């Protein structure tokens, strides 16, 4: 059971890859599908590994990520 969860706002993502680089657990990856602006948005590839540390949200320049953690 994952300790955390990420929610990605697909239309805000510009595929810069900062969240993918800084996720300590390798949860995120750049997906294959594109959003309306034509960017390949980020997806949670391994959602079960998420620990809810929120580093992805902090580095995201476009505030596209919301993070949840087990209370």
């Amino acid at each position, binding site marked *: 059971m994952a300790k955390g969860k990420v929610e990605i706002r697909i239309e805000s993502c510009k595929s*810069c890859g900062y969240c993918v680089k800084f996720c300590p657990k390798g949860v995120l990856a750049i997906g294959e599908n594109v959003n309306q602006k034509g960017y390949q948005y980020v997806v949670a590839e391994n959602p079960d590994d998420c620990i809810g540390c929120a580093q992805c949200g*902090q580095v995201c320049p476009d505030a596209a990520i919301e993070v949840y953690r087990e209370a």
Partner: protein
Amino acid sequence: MAMEKVYTRTTGIVKDMVSGFCPGCMHGTVHKLIGEVADEMGRANDLIRAEGIGCCGLGQKYVTHDSAICLHGRACAAATGIKRNEPDSLVYTYQGDGDLASIGLGETMLAANRGENFTVIFINNGIYGMTGGQMAPTTLLGMKSTTTPNGRIAEEHGYPIHMSEIINQLTAPYYIERTTCADPAGVRKTKSAIRKAFEYQAAGKGFTFVEIVTSCPTNWGLDPISALDFIKEKMLPEYPLGVLRDKGKEE
């Protein structure tokens, strides 16, 4: 088990709006941090932004607080007037290196010298962004730009300007710090620097200056991830991080 929201979009930027910044541009990160700090201080409605000219202008509709678009380089002069007339508000200028360190050098130095009670957020990415990648005062030696196609040469173009160090020569400024947004720890430090600057301003302490070393992947000709390495390998040795002055600690 119930999940608790630990990180969410700040109210300081417009809900559901996509910024006009390029992929990986750290203007977005800093806009977000300013909003987060204001949220945490409970002062989101008191913020007033005096904005420079350049890519930072793309943020004018992205932020939710009041803002003034100032003449090129004159944000510190405009902020002086705003703060003196609205002393209860939190006033900050948001300027890039071309705006603050080049055309606005005079206004910036004089506002700092007067110890005006507002915060300067200075985005240093070593290049002019919006106009198409020309050399800025902060461009590194050897760094290529559209106006220095063979790289910046000291004999022809002078040396990179260190704004934090220059302002540190003056007596009046209260708080000066240089940070970066190149990694999560840097983002958190930038946030605490902005918080400290806003708190000093709210306490009426005087001029606070936060220089943030960021990237411009588009005009550096790098992808966003390689631009992070460029910051660490090239920009930070020239612009060392740290608190240059904190009078609050001396008192």
